[in-house]
């Protein structure tokens, strides 16, 4: 009897790195994860527990050592057009304007220029960047730069959005604002999102499911479904239920002696 497959299936995925000195580092071991279409998943864990490695494995950006990763039934061996990626630093090309950065996929090929242009206009509007289309990245604040990065990742209409600590370098108030914006962006587009963070509060606030990772070797230690109603507001962070969720995540790190 075969079980029905989820949209993203990660089975027994492991990654070993060989360092320059020849040592083997087990970044991830035996990760199993099934993710339904349209869900918002956060990966939380201390630095070095393999969050970025797992995210890049799903995106096909690094080869896994063993196991399998599939999206929509297709095994992932290399990056596909179905993926959008947002990095910790916005990675904007300084010689391109906001609009040219957002539509870079059309220059690189694969994406349809007209569709990309249309969606760029729509998303730039949604994230409040209208009027900034012709500015260069150096003229924008950090928060705005990251909005450009997010818009760029959405503009070729990927099914899966991978985000690697996109707000980690921002100040607390900008971070709060962008979390709320990201939620509403997600609620209108219903992409499947995997969002990496080392902030427990951010993980709980955004997620349908929080996947907790622990280091040495990197592995999944918990999988918590967050049943807070949406749209979530910043006031909810002070509620009892929210606190219960954050404690549930935090206890794993306390057990590991890794409280942040």
């Amino acid at each position, binding site marked *: 009897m075969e079980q029905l497959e989820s949209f993203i299936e990660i089975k027994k995925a492991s990654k070993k790195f060989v360092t320059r000195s020849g040592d083997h580092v087990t970044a991830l071991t035996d990760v199993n994860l099934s993710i339904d279409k349209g869900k918002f998943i956060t990966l939380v864990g201390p630095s070095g527990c393999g969050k970025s490695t797992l995210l890049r494995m799903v995106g096909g*950006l690094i080869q896994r050592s063993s196991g399998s990763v599939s999206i929509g039934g297709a095994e992932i061996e290399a990056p596909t057009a179905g993926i959008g990626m947002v990095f910790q630093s916005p*990675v904007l090309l300084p010689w391109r304007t906001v609009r040219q950065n957002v539509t870079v996929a059309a220059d690189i090929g694969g994406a349809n220029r007209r569709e990309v242009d249309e969606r760029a206009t729509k998303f730039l509007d949604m994230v409040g960047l209208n009027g900034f289309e012709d500015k260069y990245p150096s003229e924008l604040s950090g928060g705005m730069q990251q909005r450009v990065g997010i818009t760029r990742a959405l503009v070729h209409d990927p099914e899966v959005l991978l985000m690697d600590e996109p707000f980690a370098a921002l100040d607390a108030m900008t971070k709060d604002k962008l979390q709320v914006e990201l939620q509403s962006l997600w609620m209108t587009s219903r992409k499947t999102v995997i969002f990496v963070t080392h902030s427990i509060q951010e993980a709980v606030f955004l997620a349908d499911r929080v996947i907790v990772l622990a280091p040495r070797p990197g592995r999944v230690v918990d999988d918590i479904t967050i049943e807070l109603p949406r749209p979530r507001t910043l006031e909810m962070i002070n509620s009892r239920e929210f606190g219960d969720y954050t404690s549930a995540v935090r206890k794993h790190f306390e057990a590991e002696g890794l409280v942040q």
Partner: protein
Amino acid sequence: MSEVISASVHRKVKSPSRFRFPAPDIVTLASVVVLVTFLSAWEWVLIPLLNISPALLPKPSAIAIALWSGLFVGDLGTDILITLQEVFLGYVLGSAIGFALAIPVAGSRVAERILYPYIVALQAIPKVAIAPLFVIWFGFGMTSKVVIVALITFFPVFVNAVIGLRATPAEQDELFDVYNASAWRRFRYLRLPNSAPYIFGGLNVGVTLSVIGAIVAEFVGAQEGIGSAIIRAGFALDTAGVFAAIAVLTFIAATASAAIQAIGRKLVFWMENPKG
């Protein structure tokens, strides 16, 4: 020269607390005052006081007259045009070859291991010492000068282009990985723009060297050109004529360098934009 090259590359790094110049008109005025003071002291203090012979050191006014008559009576105008052609052709040729060779060397470790030793050896040869060979091979005309200028311009452009073509940040490459970008698109949209600030650093070093190269080549053997004019004036003990030719050379080198810098600032505009 290696210091020059690395300095030209480091220009790219923005210092946050850059020294702020006062209003430019005051600065211009001050530098004009410095120049006028210097020339006046030379003309009316230094020469008369020490009683220096004009065959050793002519007055600025004598140099100006020599320049004027060279341009409008003599052949200095033709000489300038000849040297400008040599510089321009050699510079374009040397830069183009330097850039073209930088692409495989920057792109592949194998190409680097094969080509780099020869390129470094080529650079180690003193160009002045081999200039007579080029005159033997290519004659007293323009070709030998163009080749020598090209050879001298080549290296700074090559070295800077190699560094620049490798200067693409890893995260930009990863962004292009996400889009499965081809090698050509990566080159066109990442490597090339990222290398531009370095290449202009190399072009700027190269432009000054190219003028030197043309003059050295003309010293070795030429009938025309500013270098040849200097030699002719020297033999005639026309010291003012030598100074006039040197003034022209300085002007050419400075103007060409300023032009390259202006083009660089325009094309590599994003390096100038201060944050915020």
